[in-house]
């Protein structure tokens, strides 16, 4: 499965969204669409670290790296060995 697909699937199954039937695009801001609480935050970080073998440093923990499918995908790609 393509990287973007995987991220999308993860978000769809874990984020509590404000509007039930909301569809979101790869560039939509997930922090505005759903309730990002400590649970989802940790889950997302752990998922990225474990499934993609990356270490998320404290400095990486900027919302801009995680607020859409596109941004998460870019972040993972930037961290993986070339």
């Amino acid at each position, binding site marked *: 499965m393509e990287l973007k697909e995987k991220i999308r699937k993860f978000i769809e199954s*874990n984020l*509590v969204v*404000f509007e039930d039937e909301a569809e979101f695009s790869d560039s939509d801001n997930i*922090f505005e669409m759903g*309730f*990002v*609480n*400590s*649970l*989802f*935050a*940790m*889950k997302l*970080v*752990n*998922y990225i670290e*474990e499934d993609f073998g990356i270490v998320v440093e*404290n400095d990486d*923990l*900027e*919302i801009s790296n*995680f607020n859409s499918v596109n941004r998460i995908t870019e972040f993972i790609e930037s961290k993986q060995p070339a």
Partner: protein
Amino acid sequence: MTVTESKKEVKCVVWDLDYTIWDGTLAEGDNVQLKPGIKEVIQTLDSRGVLHSISSKNNYDDAMNKLKEFGLEEYFIYPEIHWNTKSSSLAAIQKNINIGMDAILFVDDQPFEREEVKSVHPDVTCLDAVEYKTMPDLPRLNPRFITDDSKRRRKMYQDDIKRKIEEEAFEGPSEEFLASLNMKFVIHEAKEEDLKRAEELTVRTNQLNATGKTYDYDELNAFRISDTHKLLVCELTDRYGSYGKIGLALIEIKEEYWHLRLLLMSCRVMARGVGTVLMSHIMQETKKAGKKLQADFKKTDRNRMMYVSYKFANFKEVSSDDEGHILFENDLSMIQPFPPYIEVKIL
């Protein structure tokens, strides 16, 4: 399905820890004491070939050390000790032991936990911890055949014991389950009668305390009365009843800033979204007052989840020292709305 109705033998009992195997809440620094006779119950069932496991929301090392202290550690296989849902723990235990869900008996003192497990695994039998003394006499816990293999059963599984770390693949309760709880979260400024409990919260809540600071009654009372401080208390109620006062926040009011000096949540209500609600409320009030928001934070090796939460709430590090003390700042450009499944009342 009650314990007496189903006929199938129970192959594994999954135990909660706080207020189930022992009295007290370990993570809040209680000097927990084993419930009278519980060791004998566990040993009796073990000698019959019944397996035991754990599903507890606690720090793994602390809980295992405490079980070791009580001489009980060896009886449990595949312990699930972390902050995820108990339903996910049961799923992991079932998979690890490779038995049917209907061969599991789950013992917990909290109706919330028993219901959460039942909502995901209807075949699991759930027992209120208060009934532990009746367990050895229950027909489903009296297997027809007890062989030498039965007595060795636990030891055979122990070779496969895997340790689950707190921060591994995290699973949260489903949205439907959360909505069915009718959670009501109330935030208000502390009154004098709240102070005793507030003091207790600062002394007991170590892991979910952003700065690790404690305050006594007089200090808190001074903050409560002071014009330059706001002391907020939070209470949570759900379908099962009230959790009492479970959160505290201390804000220092400065000329340009509101400075969050203390933020803590009781670990009993962790991972339900209330911490984020409290934070959003503070951010909204700061914005209304036309101020900017700063927050103190002390990094420890146990509070990564809290650190991540602050970062995801749009706090940025302004400064930090060698001992993990951090000053955070938030420009309030991104404030999360309250989730649909919690009713929030600001008094």
